């Protein structure tokens, strides 16, 4: 199974996510900023990205998402938004971008796993169709 790239700067939340995923047998890589996340994605493309919006450093979550879309090429990009401040505009923007899931903090471990598994499902569907949802080559999501 592919792994989850976690983009989250809060240590407590990082640990919770890592533990919840570990119990479900899902591997993850933890990053705390946009540049770290992009470097990890560049090293190995993740099956799903769990993305916070409020991040330290030069990039917020939306900018990380933009950069990942740019990097994706023919690969599937499955983003689960996982943020504390999510208003209707954010949700609409996330849906427009083809988010594989939208979670508002606090979320239960069950909700987190369900969203990640859905994202993986999206990944498998895309592979089965030989497609790559969410990329510039396939902007029809």
């Amino acid at each position, binding site marked *: 199974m592919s792994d989850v790239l976690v983009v989250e*700067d*809060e*240590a*407590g*939340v990082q*640990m*919770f996510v890592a*533990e*919840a995923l570990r*119990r479900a047998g899902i591997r993850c890589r933890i990053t*705390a*900023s946009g*540049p*770290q996340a992009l470097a990890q994605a560049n090293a190995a493309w993740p099956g799903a990205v769990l993305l916070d919006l*409020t991040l*330290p*450093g030069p990039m917020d979550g939306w900018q990380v998402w933009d950069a990942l879309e740019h990097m994706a090429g023919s690969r599937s990009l499955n983003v689960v938004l996982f943020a*504390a*401040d999510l208003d209707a505009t954010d949700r609409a923007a996330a849906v427009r971008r083809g988010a594989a899931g939208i979670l*508002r*903090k*606090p*979320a*239960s*471990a069950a909700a987190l796993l369900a969203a990640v598994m859905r994202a993986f499902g999206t990944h498998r569907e895309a592979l089965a169709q030989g497609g790559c949802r969410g990329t510039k080559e396939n902007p029809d999501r």
Partner: protein
Amino acid sequence: MHELRTPLQSIQGFAELLGPNLDPERLHRYLRIIQTEAERLEAVVDDLSQRSRISLGALDLHRVAIAVQPFLAQLCRDFELQYPGWHVALQAGARLPDVLADLEHLRQVLWTLLRNAGRYSMDTADSTVRLIAHTSAPSSNVRFIVMDTGARIPVAYREVIFEPSPRLARPVGSRPRSGLGTGLYVARELARRMGGDLTLASSPRNQGGNAFVLSVPVASDVKPA
């Protein structure tokens, strides 16, 4: 609200992961995280409560004459007890005049300054926080100066940090703030309501860090409210 929901995520999340089959090491770690995040949440609630009281003009102010040296000595002892490993170097002469202030508010303002200074200094070679109290005639105020040894606050942020909701970029890898980051706003408001002020000055030349200056009226110069 990000500052409330994020610690709540850790508390709820780790509470959910607790269970009878958890090994003792993990159980201990989870409980520590829950406790730490609960304290962080408490700091946010305190900030909100204090801000609310300030905006409603509902602050109680009971100004009394306070002997500076014993007050500061006790404050430093309490502070070092609360934050083991942090050291406060106190310079306060016994001849300082009493100040007229609300005891709890004065304590809160200085506590905020010491805590900030401790955090700013903790990754530096000399993490000692300095607290100096002095008065210079004909000034009618006693000045309390809290100095850290951390990175200097950029000029562009020198007033921003006193705003009710400062939006400051946080460097990657830095610790999250506890509370709402409004401690300095509350501290300045409290200082002003006691007839004093709180400002940020630069540390003396050849010394790094920042120096916050709290001025408080001398007891003999002000009639109690």
